């Protein structure tokens, strides 16, 4: 199948957005916190300045999905030391501009325990992670 691509340069004019890729790790509470913090920024705090792609679309999706980190300066948000969002983005898509790990926001070894129906403490962690994502979004946009 031949694909004739026209107007590909349109994307250059529209990349004044920051990409956020969350691990969304289903098996860990930190994954749920990562997801919640990312959604908080995407939907409420920076809806016009940010965009996202589901991480597994780097494998399941098409070329457009894998172009994500090439098209946007990208912040990855991970829940644990495995750094899935960072590693998979670097492997399949492109350079990561900034990497955030939820673990860095957990103080005094008070581990979150809920993967759903997050409690007050867990939501506070998500808020702090969202604060950091938002700060980084602003920093990136200032540099552009």
């Amino acid at each position, binding site marked *: *199948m*031949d*694909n*004739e*691509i*026209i*107007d*590909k340069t*349109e*994307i250059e004019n*529209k990349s004044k*957005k920051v*990409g956020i890729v969350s691990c969304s790790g289903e098996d860990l509470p930190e994954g749920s916190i990562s997801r919640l913090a990312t*959604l908080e920024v*995407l*939907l409420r705090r920076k*809806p*016009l300045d940010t*965009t*996202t*792609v589901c991480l597994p679309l780097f494998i399941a999706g*098409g*070329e*457009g*999905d894998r*172009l*994500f980190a090439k*098209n*946007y300066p990208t912040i990855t948000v991970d829940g644990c030391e495995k750094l899935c969002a960072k590693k998979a983005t670097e492997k399949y898509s492109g350079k990561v501009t900034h990497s955030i790990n939820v673990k860095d926001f957990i103080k005094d070894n008070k581990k979150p325990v809920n993967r759903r129906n997050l409690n007050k403490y867990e939501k506070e962690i998500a808020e702090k992670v969202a604060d950091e994502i938002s700060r980084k979004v602003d920093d990136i946009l200032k540099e552009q």
Partner: protein
Amino acid sequence: MNFQEYIYDKFIFKVKNEIYYHKDGCWVEKVENIATIGVTDFFQTLNGDVASVSLFGIGINLKQGDPIGDIETMKVSFELASPVSGEIIEHNKLLDNSPELVNLNPYGDGWLLKVKLDDFEKDKINLMNSKSYFDFMKLKVEEEGEKFKSGQ
């Protein structure tokens, strides 16, 4: 098969060449006196995951602009307008169990129905060729831009 692609944000919108387009979201591919009809890539992206497709019956005669059925997605339910005049002669049976084909392959396996044409020359007055539709689509993409964001 030849396509034009327009990239906006993280989306790639495809426009298939050498077919016709109606402003309300359908494409038409004419082979002899039979038109195959589907929805455009832009239309399916805008409206989201298709949950079900209900079309008017075989044998029904349509005028251009008449409703031909409903598509229900996870976001909206809407009525489709026929891009041509003629008699419905076939539905895409694949959509009974796999309506998601409309999203996955809107110009291929996701076609909706076939119509035996009455007067395509007259219908063409209100249709766009692929180049005109591409320009029209770009404007629509810009207008609807924020609707493509997460959760909307």
